[in-house]
């Protein structure tokens, strides 16, 4: 479903991605690991269409469509979702209004009628239970005064509301205690269908114990230097990245 070919991208004048090739089929989970600054978050941001990043070469197709020609919101409507590493606060915009605008924008793009208020609130209630997020957070502004754990849980809640077919979990485990990690990861597992595919970015094996990857890729200096199965993550957890760097040298 997602095919990345020879992808180069930069932020400002700095080239971060230096030729990424990656194919992700329906239902596959790909873990992306790598040293800090290797380009993991850049790759995520380029896939979802963050305007701060510039693609200089290469292509991404998503279900046959030229993803790079689509706006950020069109990509979201097509079913792409990113759980942010550091979800930001939006003071003055309530979670409920934010979610309603997002859900109805996607429905409109798919040619569906907007959800009626009562139906929308019912869906909110159901999905909220799934990720065990408190109703009182829904009455607040987006992420305002949320703890780190609540923010991450809120990301998975939004994923539940939007039902994407392709997800990027960008260090969803960072800043989470063991219990919160379990709730978030189990929430994700409950939500995914046989067709849902995902990129899971993490530094630790812990998250991958819950979300089992089909493939693990190691990103160093803007390139995928090694790919393998779940065992590769285990090996990295034990030995770090130096042995891979040595292999390259």
């Amino acid at each position, binding site marked *: 479903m997602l095919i990345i070919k020879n992808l180069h991208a930069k932020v400002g004048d700095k080239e971060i991605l230096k030729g990424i090739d990656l194919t992700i089929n329906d239902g596959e989970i790909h873990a992306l690991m790598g040293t800090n600054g290797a380009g993991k978050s850049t790759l995520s941001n380029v896939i979802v269409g963050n305007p701060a990043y510039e693609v200089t070469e290469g292509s991404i197709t998503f279900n046959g469509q030229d993803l790079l020609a689509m706006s950020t919101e069109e990509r979201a409507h097509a079913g792409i979702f990113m759980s942010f590493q550091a979800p930001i606060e939006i003071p003055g915009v309530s979670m409920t209004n934010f979610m309603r*605008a997002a859900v109805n924008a996607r429905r409109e793009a798919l040619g569906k009628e907007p959800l009626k208020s009562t139906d929308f609130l019912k869906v909110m209630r159901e999905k909220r239970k799934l990720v065990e997020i408190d109703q009182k957070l829904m009455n607040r502004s987006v992420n305002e005064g949320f703890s780190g754990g609540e923010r991450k849980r809120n990301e998975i809640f939004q994923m539940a509301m939007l039902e994407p077919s392709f997800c990027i979990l960008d260090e969803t485990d960072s800043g989470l205690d063991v219990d919160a990690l379990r709730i978030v990861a189990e929430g994700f597992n409950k939500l995914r269908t046989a067709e849902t595919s995902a990129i899971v970015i993490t530094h630790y094996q812990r998250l991958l114990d819950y979300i089992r990857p089909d493939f693990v890729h190691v990103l160093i200096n803007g390139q995928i230097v090694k790919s393998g199965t779940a065992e590769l993550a285990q090996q990295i957890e034990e030995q770090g990245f130096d042995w891979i760097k040595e292999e390259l040298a």
Partner: protein
Amino acid sequence: MTSELQYIELYNEASDLIKSKSCPVMNTVRDEAFATFQRLGFPSKKVERYRYTDVDAAFAPNYGISLSPLTVKPSAYIYNIQEAPIDVTPYYHRIADHTDAITALNTALVHDALLVYVPKNTRVEDPIVVDNWLRGTAATMMNRRVLIVMEQGADATLIINDHAADKQRFLTTQVIEVFCHDNARLDLYEIEETTPLCSRFSNVYIQEGRDCNVKHNSITLFNGQTRNLCDVYLQGENSEVTLNGCAIATGSQRIDNNTLIRHEVPNCTSDELYKYVVDDKAVGAFAGKILVEKDAQKTSSHETNANLCASSDARMYTQPMLEIYADDVKCAHGSTVGVMDEAALFYMRQRGIPEAEARTLLKNAFMGQVIDQIKYEPLRQRLAVKVEKRFRGELEKCDDCRLCK
């Protein structure tokens, strides 16, 4: 500095006519005000309080002056000054700044005035509403005068709506004098919803006695060029004043708010919050001074001006000022000018919210803080809807006015 001439000629030709349509209390101060105007001329940008507005240019076009009588629909508490139930001599042109050229010109040319009078210990439950309709078949100058007298213990909410009913050039000068006697309370809302062809120069002067509470809300939803001045004189202890402002400008609209709060006595509180969203090539200006005089100990004052420049061509000038001569006071002031939060925009777009909608949500959220300050709930709800419509570009004409349809 040439625009004065036509107004000087106008006065020389028409002052007898104006006087014949007016009343003694207004005529008594007229010639002197004209002399003041003649001496001062229109303020140039070198005059501190007019540095952000080109007055001369605004008054340069040839406008016909409207001398039609003020129509006051019979209703409680509102009068044509010529039928005032009280002697207004102690009030008319008493606290208006005699050194301000616009006030002087208004005083010279205005022939009729509106009086809002709330007698002693009268609590008016429903808001008093004044609707101003600018109408004309040619470019027209309107000079408007309002006198608000709140006697001791009086309590009222006054909403003044400004509309332009014809697609015509209008130049408005306005002077409002507000007298709050001891223990009076007034919530005053001024809502401008005119057209890009309108220029407005409004000067509001508010005097408070002891134990008063005045809230002034200045809301500019749609306009051409607007310059609002609001001066507050706190002259009795334990009084409070709140100044709130909501200014939204797009296209080549200009909004200039200039305020002064003068703490003359101890133990008073002032709170000021003005917010602007300027977009396209619009220009916003805010200058607010808090003056705490030597004897005004235990003053508590807070002034904030926060601004959002939604486009790179929009301009915002901000100048919060504190001048303190007392030594036991609690005062804070500050201003911010920011641009659209790109990270928030990206976050919302990633969730599928179209960029235009995301921008609207952010602007609306920014302005929400001022709208939330509106105490009269039906008005707050109505304005919340209007502000959102404004940000969606759906407020090109005043939608609830029958004349526009």
